[in-house]
């Protein structure tokens, strides 16, 4: 049976993302956690494969004890087991260290894995690095931002949208794919599944030592990212008054805002200049 490992991350709910302005860090203690949306899509892809052809799905996460919640949710949705990598030694890991830890966890906890799925990026840091780095760690072929997977025997076809063209890649198992948020719309967790996930869900908690990760190895593999400064982008409302005759005011309004409006609605509203246009809408 196909063996799938899905890496998920608990992130703060976006609407409840409190920052500590002094230290520039997330007040995770205040924010309610949830499964990162793209990770949910990756899990959905795994569950659809499981439903179509049968698969054994292990969900892994690295995080504090509270991160168990996203694993329970994954079990409720249909995953077979959860693995929580939890160790104070791992606190503050950047993507490089995280991928090394996840690689160790998959190697030890998911024997003979065929397919590793990750969300394309996380909503809290949006680096999109862990998936590809994990593939490097495990020396696996990888594709990022996949919108569709097709499996035939040991061959995986990955369709993905890159810039403005769509490409289809083919690779042999074992492989790693990061899933984008287009196609695999996550299902809702049923309450019976949630209840069962807490009663009889299969959950393993491992620390760094269980994965053979020592302090020195972690230092060597340790976080190389140094955060110099974190700042909050301020969005400010502004009232603008355009005065004068209607035609002139409309023209000025369009001059100022038509590009912005076009960007928001995803369609150009820029007008072509008409020869006898008294308003002089000249774009």
């Amino acid at each position, binding site marked *: 049976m196909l063996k799938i490992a899905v890496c998920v991350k608990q992130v703060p709910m976006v609407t409840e993302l409190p920052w500590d302005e002094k230290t520039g860090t997330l007040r995770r203690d205040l924010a309610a956690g*949830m499964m990162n949306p793209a990770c949910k899509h990756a899990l959905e892809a795994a569950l659809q494969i499981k439903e179509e052809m049968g698969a054994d799905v292990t969900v892994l996460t690295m995080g504090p004890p509270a991160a168990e*919640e996203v694993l329970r949710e994954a079990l409720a949705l249909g995953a077979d087991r959860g693995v929580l990598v939890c160790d104070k030694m791992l606190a503050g890991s950047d993507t490089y260290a995280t991928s090394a830890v996840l690689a160790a966890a998959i190697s030890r906890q998911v024997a003979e894995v065929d397919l590793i799925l990750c969300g394309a990026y996380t909503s809290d840091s949006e680096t999109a690095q862990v998936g590809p780095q994990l593939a490097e760690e495990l020396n696996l072929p990888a594709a990022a931002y996949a919108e569709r997977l097709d499996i035939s025997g040991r061959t995986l076809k990955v369709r993905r949208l890159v810039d403005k063209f769509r490409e289809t890649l083919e690779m042999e198992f074992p492989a790693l794919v990061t899933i984008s948020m287009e196609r695999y719309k996550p299902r*809702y*967790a049923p*309450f*019976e599944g*949630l*209840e069962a996930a807490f009663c009889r869900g299969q959950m393993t908690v491992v620390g760094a030592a269980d994965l053979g990760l020592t302090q020195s190895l972690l230092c060597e593999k340790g976080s190389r990212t140094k955060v110099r400064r974190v700042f909050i982008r301020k969005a400010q409302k502004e009232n603008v008054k355009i005065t004068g005759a209607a035609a002139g005011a409309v023209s000025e309004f369009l001059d100022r805002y038509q590009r912005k409006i076009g960007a928001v609605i995803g369609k150009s509203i820029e007008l072509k200049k008409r020869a006898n246009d008294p308003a002089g809408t000249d774009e």
Partner: protein
Amino acid sequence: MQFNPCMKHKLIRSTARHFAETELAPIAAEIDQHRIFPREVIEKMRPLHYFGLQAPKEYGGAALDSISAAIVVEELSRVCAAVGLCVTVHNGVAVYPFLQFASSSQKEKYLPKLASGEVIGAFSLTEANAGSDAGSVETTAVKSGSDYVLNGTKIFVTNGGVCDVALIFALTSSPENRLQSSVFIVESGLPGFLRGELEDLCGMRANPVSSLFLEDCRVPQENLLGHLGDGMKIGLATLDNGRIGVAAQALGIAQGAMEAAVKYAKERQQFKKPIASQQTIQNYIADMATEIMAARLLLYRACELKDAGQPFGCEASMAKLYCSSVASKVTSVAVQIHGGYGYSKEYDVERYFRDAKVTEIYEGTSEIQRVVIARAILSSPIL
């Protein structure tokens, strides 16, 4: 006793919240205004066990504990109280009496369909002359061969417009010819089962509340719930449970209104600063938050007693009395914080304000809750 939510309760809450915000938030105002029962959303809720929250797994339910079930109703009502009402009435006063009083063959026949939401349930006690005085029911059930023939009118039936099965309270004759109340499982397809027009109510407008008419409606005798004359016993036990659901609903409405008011208070600028910086508004917010927290703890205590198999009627009445009172007060203050905008349909607090009021009325008025509580306190040797 635990005062912090456990991981399961947190996950149940975030799951129900995500569903409510995704599926109900975009339509809540519209279905309220036009009195639309959101069938498409109800269809999505069915496989997720919203209609079998506490039904055992062998009947296809989720077998949740009572706090989890209350959290689900809270979260639905925080966004759309009318759908919260549909769910809590179905689970609390339709599925629950089946679990407590139905025969094994009645359970086999009805519970799987009720727990899956394929069949929507209703509880029909109230009549024109029987409200708080539940003993004054005038609907009759007269034995005729192997059937009972039901005649009468039930009013203000929650889910009345869409229910497939209604529990009808009717007067029957005892062998000694004394009139006593009994409960019948009545399927909506039976001849003589008729629905009235949907009520045009102040709040909860997306719930199809209607009258039900029974005109020589023949119900097989195997559809008697419990025993002949069990009506009052079934009614009181069911209402004890239903009150937990209405308390949860009121709490959800209060939570939604407070969140809306806090958001607005931070955004609304007057005198060149957010109104949240005014001490008066801060006092309002502090009181709302404190009362909601107290209401929640009272509710969860009633839930814990119920799950422990202990008597919970008095605590359920306390929770219902307090949560509904908090809901009315908090929604009124939330409108006040919004000022003129709060009185407009443009903002959700106007709907919350209308929805909250009825939680002080149905499933036993606040006055009746005080009767229940006072009776329990006065008859208890330990206070």
